[in-house]
C-alpha cells in the first residue's frame, strides 16, 4: 500500500483482491485509520468502542491505552497540534470524562486531524446510562458524522479526517452499539484522501493558547467555520436521498436508517451522514416534498428538535421509543403511531461472577461484616446481584471513593464506621487516584477503608492492560504504577496487600481491623482474574525472556 498526492491511498493488486471483508464497525474504523496514516490512536477501554484500538494495533498502527479518556483526548490533541493525524476512542460516558478538553479544543485551530470516536450504547447493553452524545456535538460545536454500517464506518472515518484537516477542527465520529459490533461487508480503498502532513511545530499563540484574549476571537471563528461547514453539508455533505413515495418521507441517521429501509422500503428517505452542523435546507426541501415527514432516530429527539427549531414541520416518534434501541419492528410501530405496550422479552440468564473469581471472596467478607459498600464499575459490579447483594452504590467510574467519604462524613457514627469504598484496579487508575487524594486531604472523623480489587487486568471490557499492570496495549513491558507505593507516598499509613482467595479468614480479620481503626486504610486485594491469569503469566514470561 502507498500514498499518492492526487489519489491518496493506493492499494496494490493483491490488496485490491482482498479488499472485500466482513468487518465490525469498530474494525472498519481501525482499518480506515490505518489506511489514512493515523500517527497515534489513544483511548480508554469501554464497550462498544474497545476493539477499535485493539484492531488498529493488530493492523500495524500505533495505539495506546491512557489512564482515562481525558488524558487520551489530551494526548490526541497534542498529536493534532503537530500536524499529524490522531484518533481517540471511548464509550459514550468516556466523553463526559473528556468533556473538558473537548469544549476548548473546539476553539483551537488544528494543524493535523483529530477524530474523536464516541461509541454510544442505546439500550444499555453494557453501560450505566444511555446518554445520547449527539448533544455533545451541538453543545461543544464539534462537527459530527454518524455511520450506519461498517462500510460507512470505514468511509466516514476517512471523511472525518478530510473535514478535520480542511476546516482545522476536531470531528466527532458518533457510533452506536449496533454499528460498532455488527459485522457487515466492507470494501476497502473506496475513497481517496490526501496523505498526512509531516509533523512539525510552529508557534501560534492565538490559535492554541486559550486565554480569554485569544479565546474570544477563537469562539467567533468557530461559529463562522461551523456556518461554512453547514453550507457545505447542505451542498455536498455525506447525506443520501432515496426517492420513494411522495406520501411518506423519513429523515433518519445512523443505525435507524437500516431499520427504516427494512420497515418502510417504499418511503422516501433522507439519510443524514453528517448530523452536526445539520443540512437544514436539504431537510426543509425534503420535508416540503412529501405529504408526511417523520423523523426516525434512536435515543433523544435530537434531529426533531433541530428541525422544529428551524421551522421545519416534522412528526416525531412517541416518547416511549426514546428508551432502548430501535429495530425494524419498533420503526413500524412508530410509523403507525402505535403506542400500545410492547411485548416484554423473556428474561435471559443474567451474567454472574465467574466461579472462582477473586471478587467473590471480597463480597462474601464485606457482606458477613455488614459493610455499607460504596461500589464502582467493573466485573465486581455483579456483587450487587444475589447471592452477594453486597454493593450499595454505582454512579460512575471512580465514584466509590468520593461517595464512600460522603457517607462517612454524614452518617451517624455507628453506620459511618461500616462504610467501605470498593473499586477495581483499572478503575482506580482511571479516576480513583484523585479520590484517594481527597481521602487524605479531607479524612472523615471515623477514618475510611478503601479496598482496591487488583485482578491485574481490565476484565469487564475484555482484559485490557492499564498502567497498574506495567504492560502496554500490546502487552509489552513498560512503567508500572505500584498502588501500595502510591498510597503510602500520599501519607496513608495503613496500607496492606493481601490475596483474598488464599485465606478468607485472614482477609476478613484484616478488613475488620481496618474498620475498627478510625484511621485511613487502603487494602489492595491482589489476585489475578481467573480468565486472564494464563495470558498474564504468558506475557510476563515473554517480557522476562526479552529482558534477559
Amino acid at each position, binding site marked *: 500500500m502507498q500514498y499518492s498526492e492526487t489519489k491518496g491511498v493506493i492499494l496494490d493488486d493483491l490488496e485490491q483482491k482482498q479488499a472485500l471483508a*466482513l468487518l465490525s464497525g469498530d474494525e472498519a474504523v481501525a482499518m480506515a485509520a490505518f489506511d489514512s496514516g493515523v500517527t497515534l490512536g489513544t483511548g480508554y477501554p469501554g*464497550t*462498544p468502542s474497545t476493539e477499535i484500538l485493539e484492531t488498529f494495533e493488530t493492523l500495524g498502527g500505533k495505539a495506546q491505552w491512557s489512564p482515562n479518556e481525558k488524558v487520551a483526548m489530551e494526548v490526541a490533541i497534542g498529536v493534532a497540534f503537530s500536524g499529524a493525524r490522531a484518533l481517540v476512542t471511548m464509550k459514550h460516558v468516556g466523553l463526559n470524562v473528556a468533556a473538558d478538553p473537548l469544549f476548548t479544543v473546539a476553539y483551537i485551530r488544528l494543524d493535523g486531524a483529530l477524530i474523536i470516536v464516541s461509541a454510544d450504547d442505546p439500550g444499555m*447493553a*453494557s453501560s450505566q446510562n444511555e446518554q445520547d452524545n449527539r448533544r455533545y456535538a451541538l453543545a461543544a460545536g464539534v462537527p459530527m458524522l454518524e455511520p450506519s*454500517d461498517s462500510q460507512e464506518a470505514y468511509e466516514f472515518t476517512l471523511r472525518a479526517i478530510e473535514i478535520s484537516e480542511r476546516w482545522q477542527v476536531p470531528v466527532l465520529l458518533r457510533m452506536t*452499539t*449496533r454499528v460498532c*459490533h*455488527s*459485522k*457487515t*461487508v466492507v470494501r476497502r480503498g473506496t475513497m481517496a484522501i490526501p496523505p498526512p502532513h509531516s509533523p512539525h511545530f510552529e508557534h501560534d499563540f492565538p490559535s492554541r493558547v486559550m486565554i480569554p484574549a485569544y479565546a474570544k476571537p477563537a469562539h467567533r471563528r468557530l461559529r463562522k467555520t461551523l456556518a461554512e461547514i453547514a453550507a457545505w453539508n447542505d451542498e455536498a455533505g455525506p447525506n443520501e436521498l432515496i426517492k420513494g413515495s411522495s406520501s411518506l418521507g423519513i429523515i433518519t441517521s445512523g*443505525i435507524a436508517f*437500516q*431499520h427504516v*429501509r*427494512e420497515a418502510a*422500503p417504499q418511503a422516501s428517505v433522507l439519510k443524514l451522514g453528517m448530523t452536526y452542523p445539520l443540512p437544514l435546507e436539504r431537510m426543509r426541501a425534503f420535508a416540503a416534498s412529501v405529504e408526511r415527514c417523520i423523523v426516525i432516530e434512536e435515543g433523544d429527539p435530537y434531529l426533531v428538535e433541530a428541525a422544529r427549531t428551524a421551522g421545519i414541520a416534522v412528526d416525531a416518534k412517541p416518547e416511549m421509543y426514546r428508551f432502548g434501541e430501535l*429495530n*425494524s*419492528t419498533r420503526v413500524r410501530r412508530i410509523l403507525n403511531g402505535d403506542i400500545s405496550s410492547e*411485548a416484554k*422479552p*423473556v*428474561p*435471559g*440468564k*443474567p*451474567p*454472574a*461472577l*465467574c466461579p472462582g473469581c477473586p471478587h467473590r471472596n471480597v463480597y462474601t467478607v464485606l457482606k458477613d461484616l455488614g459493610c455499607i459498600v460504596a461500589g464502582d464499575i467493573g*466485573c465486581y459490579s*455483579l456483587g450487587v446481584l444475589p447471592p452477594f447483594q453486597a454493593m450499595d452504590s454505582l454512579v460512575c467510574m471512580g465514584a466509590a471513593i468520593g461517595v464512600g467519604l460522603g457517607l462517612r462524613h454524614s452518617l451517624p457514627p455507628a453506620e459511618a464506621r461500616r462504610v467501605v469504598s470498593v473499586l477495581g484496579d483499572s478503575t482506580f487508575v482511571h479516576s480513583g487516584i484523585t479520590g484517594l487524594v481527597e481521602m487524605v486531604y479531607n479524612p472523615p472523623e471515623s477514618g475510611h477503608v478503601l479496598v482496591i480489587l487488583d485482578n491485574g487486568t481490565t476484565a*469487564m*471490557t475484555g482484559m485490557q492492560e492499564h498502567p497498574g499492570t506495567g504492560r502496554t496495549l500490546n502487552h509489552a513491558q513498560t512503567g508500572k504504577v505500584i498502588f501500595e507505593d502510591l498510597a503510602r507516598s500520599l501519607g496513608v499509613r495503613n496500607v496492606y496487600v493481601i490475596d483474598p482467595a488464599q485465606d478468607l479468614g485472614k482477609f476478613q480479620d484484616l478488613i475488620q481491623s481496618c474498620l475498627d481503626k478510625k484511621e485511613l486504610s487502603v487494602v489492595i486485594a491482589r489476585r489475578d482474574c481467573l*480468565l486472564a491469569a494464563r495470558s498474564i503469566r504468558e506475557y510476563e514470561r515473554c517480557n522476562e525472556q526479552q529482558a534477559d
Partner: protein
Amino acid sequence: MNSKPTNVVIAGLGGQGVIKASDILADVAFSAGLDVKKSELHGMSQRGGSVSSDVRFGERVFSPMVPEGEADFLLVIAPDQIPVNAAALRLGGSLIDPSQIDESSLSNKKSINVALLGVLSRHLQFPVEAWTAALERNLPQKLHDANLQAFSIGRAAGQTLEQKIGQKR
C-alpha cells in the same frame, strides 16, 4: 424488489461459542458472495449470561437485527435458552438444538456449537467445502479435527432428521 434475506438466530450462554458459531456462518455466506450482516450484544458474556447472535444473508440486507418472529432458523446451544429465544422464530421456522445430536459421539463436547452448524448446513444451499473452509479459517489449528468431526456428526444428524420429516409428510 429484493428477495428476503435468510434469518438465523444463534443463542446460548457465555462461553458456549455462540459468537464463534455465528462468525463461521457469516463467513460461509460472505464467501458465497452474499450480502451479510451479523449482530450481537457482547460485553459481559464471559460470566455465563444469555448470549444471542443474529446472522442475516441474502441479496441485500438492511437491519443487522433479525426482526422478532422472523427467524428462519433458531439454533440454541443451551436447552434452557430455548424459551428465552423462542419468540425469534417465525411460524414454520426450524429449531435446531442439542437434542438432535448424540453428544456422546463428539470427540470434544465443546464443539456442540459446530455440530449444530452441521445440522443447519443441511437446510442451507452452501457446499460442504465452504463450511470446512470457514471452520478452518475461524478456529485455531489444534481444534480443527474435533470441529470437523463435530460438523460431520451434525450434518449426518441433520440428514436423518430430514428423512424422518420427509417420511412423516
